[in-house]
């Protein structure tokens, strides 16, 4: 999606560079990583949490929206998104994901929408809604739960509004949990978008804040807490940047903004 759309995720660690494939359908690697304003592949800037026991039972954060940019590419294929997710580790492509996305709708033009996705995040498994939000933060969370009828764990993807996690609306509760889980809080750009959704060096887009940190739940029944996250950067575009503050805020920018 936007990642919005769903995003399939694949993580790999190459020295300081991590490969992450999110909502969209093919892996990103150094060979096909995009250069600035060219290419057709996704670029990821953000963070991930990969606990040793491969167990991530929840992720939550306020995610920032900025509406003052233009999606690049051609109508229909340009998109930038900011999201949190529990994604399938290893070679898996599963994802449970929610956040904001900026689309270049070929009929209706630039649109900034909330989105969520499951499955591999591709067609039919990503959904956009509420494309009228103003600049600001919105609280999202994804929590694994036990489905006592089907006897499986699933993920509940929730939109909790603008003031905290007290009142949430479930967007989806169908996705069966992944055997190998990883957490992600990331910005994703298609066609190497230069887009204010990514923020500027002086005014970055944040996932989490100092008062409402990006938090995860570890093993089932655990508690929300900030974790030992690390930087994810799959693009060769030097203009993109992500930094992590105190393991609680991910700050993302496009230096061209």
């Amino acid at each position: 999606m936007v990642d919005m759309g769903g995003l399939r995720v694949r993580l790999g660690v190459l020295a300081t560079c991590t490969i992450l494939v999110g909502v969209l359908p093919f892996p990103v690697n150094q060979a096909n990583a995009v250069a600035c304003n060219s290419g057709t592949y996704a670029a990821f800037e953000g963070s991930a949490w990969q606990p040793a026991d491969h167990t991530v039972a929840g992720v939550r954060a306020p995610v920032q929206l900025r509406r003052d940019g233009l999606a690049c590419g051609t109508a229909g294929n340009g998109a930038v998104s900011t999201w949190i997710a529990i994604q399938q580790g290893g070679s898996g492509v599963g994802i449970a994901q929610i956040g904001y996305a900026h689309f270049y709708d070929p009929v209706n033009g630039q649109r900034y929408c909330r989105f969520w996705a499951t499955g591999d995040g591709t067609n039919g498994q990503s959904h956009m809604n509420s494309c009228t939000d103003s600049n600001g933060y919105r609280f999202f969370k994804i929590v694994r739960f036990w489905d006592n009828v089907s006897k499986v764990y699933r993920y509940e993807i929730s939109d909790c509004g603008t003031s905290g996690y007290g009142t949430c609306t479930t967007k989806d509760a169908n996705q069966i949990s992944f055997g190998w889980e990883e957490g992600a809080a990331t910005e994703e750009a298609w066609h190497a978008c230069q887009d204010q959704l990514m923020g500027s060096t002086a005014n970055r887009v944040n996932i989490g804040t100092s008062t409402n940190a990006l938090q995860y739940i570890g093993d089932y029944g655990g508690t929300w807490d900030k974790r030992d996250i690390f930087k994810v950067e799959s693009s060769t575009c030097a203009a993109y940047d992500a930094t992590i503050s105190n393991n609680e805020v991910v700050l993302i920018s496009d230096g061209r903004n």
Partner: protein
Amino acid sequence: MAKSRRIAAAVVIAGGGTALSTALLVTGSVSASTGASGNGPIVINSGRHEVFVPAPDNDTSTTGHGAWSTTQTAESAWAAFAALNQFATTDLPAEVTPALGKLTVPIGPVGPAGSMAYDAHDKTVWAYKWTWCQPGVADTNPDPSQCVHWLFLDGDTAIAIDETWQS
């Protein structure tokens, strides 16, 4: 809309969370109705069982449908949505095809006694489709002209229920 007690009973939220859906809860059938004229259901998302059933004859008028009737026309519902979303024009674009029908959008898995929580269950909607591949998919799709994007608006309020790409 009613709080989903079924979800509350069936699940345990990790971390003590209490995020429960404000959703329509239906016990029994989880399938959408079928158009009286035999128009078959369109599966929007097979994994999620999201289904749209076009009205008989795919008629886009608002009279004569009985249970299919709406207070909005295809044009008025689109205009309301377009205005809310600040589109350049509120006119229904030529590239967009409207259809009246019933939409079913489940939220959760099947619960006890076949119950299920829904965003919409056999809800009369105006559906709009146009050619648009999900970003990323367009780059690998051998025929992007076959990508179908759907927008579903409440037939009476023109409030968006879902917007997605057909699987």
